[in-house]
């Protein structure tokens, strides 16, 4: 009885140094450890290089009857032995996103087969309950589809004439918007670096959110400088309010203060500015920003809603955060007076007393709308009516 002869790989003239190693690895994958592969080829250094390759990979090489024979070792399989699947790539499949991904999954793609022995990456945000939203993939797709190019989305060159004081008001409002957008960029940017990459969709969403804010900063700056060489006033009270936001170390609290309360309030402000914009450029920059903000608010509501459903004690912490921030800001000036005046002027359209009265009423109505909508969002999260209203009233007078 004769043994069946081992499989044979013909490399022809191909050298190990030019990709022959790939074919050898492929052929060896196809045979069992401890069994042989015959290798033929005409490259002059074939045997020399095969010996180097196999020495490093733990295979044996011998020459038998003028033929090169490689006996497959087991070391090449080691990285796959004991490797684990890091969840599943598609977030819709069951168990795709686990509650507590291993730090050793590190930066591996969710769903990848992760070799054991990788170093641990300790991410502060690595619990699903803290950050996950089932909507994240959908919101990210929406954000990616709605990215706009500041150079072409806004009619920068469209002619318009504004009285000096109206232009001044626009520049002041833009100056105020820019610092608020900066806070809105820094908060997600800080937390995205803390997230376990297993929560890929949330990571992507926060990244694109930061990119949205980068664009908002750009277009507001560009609008402010369209007719002027200098920006307006940044007040101590405004910055004090933003500092309490930027310094908040807890993701849930920061996201609550920024996205649900701050950006929620900004939605009303931006649509107000859209309605009363004195020129086409202002009208478009605030409209495009408002569209983005709506997504930021949606994500805040989505992940906090999920978080609250699994951890009801978070209600108390969120309420406390609003109260604490209110106490901290109690003795600050609140909204920049010049911004307030600017909003009145834009809504009034002129300095005629009767117009100013109308403008003033419109800004008061805006404040009321902001407060009502904040309360409604708080109710959507599950706060009961009276508390929702009370917390809404404690929100910073700086809007963000």
């Amino acid at each position: 009885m004769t043994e069946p002869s081992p499989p044979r790989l013909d490399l022809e003239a191909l050298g190990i140094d030019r990709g022959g190693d790939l074919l050898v690895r492929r052929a060896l994958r196809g045979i069992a450890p401890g069994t042989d592969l015959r290798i033929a080829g005409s490259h002059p250094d074939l045997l020399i290089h095969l010996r180097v390759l196999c020495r490093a990979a733990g295979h044996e090489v011998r020459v038998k009857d003028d033929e090169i024979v490689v006996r497959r070792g087991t070391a090449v399989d080691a990285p796959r032995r004991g490797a684990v699947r890091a969840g599943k790539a598609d977030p819709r499949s069951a168990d795709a996103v686990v509650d507590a991904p291993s730090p050793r999954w590190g930066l591996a793609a969710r769903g990848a087969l992760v070799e054991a022995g990788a170093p641990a990456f300790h991410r502060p945000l690595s619990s699903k309950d803290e950050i996950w939203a089932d909507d994240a993939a959908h919101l990210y797709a929406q954000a990616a589809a709605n990215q706009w190019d500041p150079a072409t989305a806004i009619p920068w060159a469209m002619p318009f004439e504004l009285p000096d004081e109206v232009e001044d008001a626009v520049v002041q409002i833009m100056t105020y918007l820019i610092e608020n957008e900066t806070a809105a960029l820094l908060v997600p940017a800080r937390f995205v670096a803390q997230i376990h990459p297993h929560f890929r969709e949330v990571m992507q969403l926060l990244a694109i959110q930061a990119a949205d804010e980068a664009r908002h900063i750009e277009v507001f700056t560009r609008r402010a400088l369209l007719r002027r060489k200098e920006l307006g006033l940044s007040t101590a009270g405004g910055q004090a309010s933003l500092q309490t936001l930027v310094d908040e170390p807890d993701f849930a609290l920061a996201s609550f203060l920024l996205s649900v309360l701050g950006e929620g309030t900004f939605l009303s402000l931006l649509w107000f500015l859209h309605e009363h914009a004195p020129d086409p450029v202002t009208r478009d920059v605030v409209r495009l920003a408002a569209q983005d903000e709506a997504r930021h608010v949606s994500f805040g509501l989505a992940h906090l809603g999920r978080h609250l459903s699994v951890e009801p004690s978070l209600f108390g912490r969120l309420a406390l955060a609003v109260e604490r921030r209110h106490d901290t800001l109690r003795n600050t000036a609140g909204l920049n007076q010049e911004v307030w005046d600017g909003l009145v002027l834009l809504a009034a359209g002129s300095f005629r007393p009767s117009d100013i009265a109308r403008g003033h009423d419109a800004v008061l109505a805006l404040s009321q709308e902001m407060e009502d909508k904040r309360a409604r969002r708080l109710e959507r999260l599950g706060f009961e009516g009276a508390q929702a209203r009370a917390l809404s009233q404690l929100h910073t007078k700086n809007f963000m």
Partner: protein
Amino acid sequence: MSTILLGAVAYDPKVVTIWDGFRVFFAKHGLDFDYVLFSNYERQVLAHLSGHVHVAWNSPLAWLQTERAAKACGRRAEAIAMRDTDCDLTSVVVARSETIRTLADLRGKRVAVGAKDSPQATLIPLEYFAAAGLVPGRDFEVVYNDVLVGKHGDHIGGERDAARALAAGTVDAACLLDANHLAFSRDGTLPASSRTVAQTRPYDHCNFTVLDDAPRDLIGRFRELLFSMHYDDAEVRPLMDLEGLKAWRNGRTEGYADLAASIDRFGTIVPFLEHAASEISSARP
């Protein structure tokens, strides 16, 4: 239990990572292991002979230096373990010109080698030439690429310079470790037109060396733990990858025969042995 102290040569920054990793591994298994780094093998061999370290991670040349210096004072050295990848290495002689097809064609030519103390790129290939009847320096010119002498060719720089010299046409042939020949063929350091004109017999590379007065229990435990390392174990695999092995093997010394013939022929370590003899005798009370 007391500390087992290893000596190793710092030929690359990764050496620190490697031995720190071994320290953690041995500590986890209850062996108090520490290491001392030397900038060159000669200093390490002297330190070993003077009893400053218990075990030395030696190049093949450092093994022979230790073995012979030990013998000169009536002592005995032993190679207790080596990597699977230390076994059966070869070196090749590469040329470019169509007219150079055998070693004999290199008569009167210029041949690039590695550092003058490199077993793989200098000492073993030159022995191979000499055994074939071509006396280095007389029958052909030897062009040394002395990168980091004292590190016994562990650093790849000397061989890369030899390959570059061949590519630049300033030499007619270059001597390289087989693995570096593959690496330099892959990355284009060697021109596609180069050809291998000769290959040495297989020889062995590094080993863990101990002397006859080493603490037996400690060495026994050290060896036992080394051999307990399995490439399948994810905890030690990164360390084994870094050190470049899949399995530890028993030490064997037959694979140093060609290197021994080389240093006998060229008298390579005679000055070192004289120096060692005076150092060691003056160190003894």
